[in-house]
């Protein structure tokens, strides 16, 4: 408990009645990567009527006895500068990539590396979803991992998971990874 500096707000956290443990998860990635679709798929909601996110979405999902507060923030270029404001106290970063959008692999890699350097995300575990595997032109997750140089990340846990947010395939695998690694770690 940071005593006087940012004290009071951290104090207020303790007033919450619930004994349930909460995780703050931030869902980022370029526009059209499928973040909101993924979020809705996580919350078992309809994924047919999703439009580009101008602001952000937040959903609380119960999983493995935890409450996961998932923040999905719009990925359009003009919104990206706002990402920083949502990184405080983050327990996990989920980064979503459109595996079929090869032209923007470089751009998405740059954005990710910038995020990784953020002070607020220091040591925060990273889960990359190689989304849109349902498309024929999608690159395999291993290829994307290589392109992102994920193997050079030594300061945090990371994982890449192929998935299709539309069909839901692979999404649960990613969540299992979260629960096996992050949740258990946090409980310790």
């Amino acid at each position, binding site marked *: 408990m940071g005593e006087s500096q940012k004290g*009071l707000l951290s*104090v*207020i956290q303790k*007033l919450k009645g619930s004994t349930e443990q909460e995780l703050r998860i931030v869902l980022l990635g370029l526009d059209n990567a499928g973040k909101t679709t993924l979020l809705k798929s996580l919350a078992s909601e309809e994924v047919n009527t999703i439009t580009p996110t*101008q*602001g*952000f979405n937040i959903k609380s999902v119960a999983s493995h006895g935890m409450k996961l507060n998932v923040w999905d923030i719009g990925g359009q270029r003009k919104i990206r500068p706002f990402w920083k404001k949502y990184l405080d106290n983050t327990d996990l970063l989920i980064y979503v990539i459109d595996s079929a959008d090869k032209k923007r692999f470089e751009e998405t890699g740059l954005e990710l590396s910038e995020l990784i350097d953020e002070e607020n995300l220091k040591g925060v575990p990273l889960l990359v979803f190689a989304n849109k595997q349902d498309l024929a032109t999608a690159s395999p997750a291993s290829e994307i991992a290589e392109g992102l140089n994920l193997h050079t990340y030594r300061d945090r846990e990371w994982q890449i998971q192929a998935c299709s947010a539309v069909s839901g395939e692979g999404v649960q695998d990613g969540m299992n990874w979260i629960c096996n690694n992050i949740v258990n770690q946090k409980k310790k």
Partner: protein
Amino acid sequence: MAEEEEEDWVLESIVGYLGSPEWVIPVSDFMEIKCSVFDDEDESKLTYTEIHQQYKQLVEKLLDNHMQEIGINEQQFVEACTSPFAKSKTVQVLFQPVLATDDFQMFRSLMVQKNMELQLQALRVIKERQGALPECLTDGADVMSELEQQEMKILQEVLKKSKEEYDEGLSQRTVGSTSGPCSGRGAPPAPGALEEAPTQDPGSSRAQVSPVGRAALEEAAGGLNSPEETSCAAATKHTTASKVLPVVRAPVKGGEPPADPCPGAQEQGSSKPSSTEACLDEARREAGISKPYTELSESQQQRAQYLREQRDKLQALKRGQPNGRQMASPEGRAPDPPPAPVTPEVSAEEKKKLQKRKHLAEKLKEEVIKK
């Protein structure tokens, strides 16, 4: 034991503070001022985060002040607030605004709720004064949607009937507009209202209602020249009540306030509610109309709606007072001479406007009927 007592005392003080004006006023002020951007869309706006941040600062400042005042530290604060006594429902409700600092979703729902409350309040005020909402206001008001659906059916019927009588209404307006005083058309409101006065001696037969109704209609029709003016005209009819709905604040031209000192206008104002009860009824039904026309642009919608409203008013008058209508025609022409000689240019201008209006009406009719 002593510790427990102290906890009690601290909690009591905190609860007292959370119910006191020192806390309630700044917090509810903040919410009232900032809540207008909070809608109940699924997606949150980036500004919500900013406002939440400001809210945290405010609450932190207020609580800090209070803790200093009663001389407790954060530790004691937490202990008091997590004591069993703090678990009661009433206390938990009081704590909600505090907890909202740490819980964005809770904060958001508080703000959305506040926004709804204010909107409903504003709508209620307008309704109380007018008996119905100006249509340009129903557009953005989500609360109306249920009502809209209900009223849609009635409305369609009304529309059908009104279409038949529409042309008649138009031609009658042609007659009326030359005769009509120009209260709503940028002429100074007081003279306009005064001109009307002679046509409506207080206490005379109901027939006088028609000219009044027509005057109102013209007032409105005058507003048809531009969407902006439309809203002005609407404003004149529908009070200056709401802060949520800015259209209403538009300058009052021929309407109530400036007319106050003038008996004629007062007469007009007071005769409205009674004579046009039917109209208001009609108008209320119309509240549902915005839905099917959402495809139109906003200004088109506004114009279409307004025109329709006026048309239906005319019908209501005709329907409600078959005698009045017959008598209205002569009476309607009776005041013809006065305005004409007074300002010939006006009537020329009027003709132009009328031309424009007619054109507009045709266009709108087409659009509306097509739908």
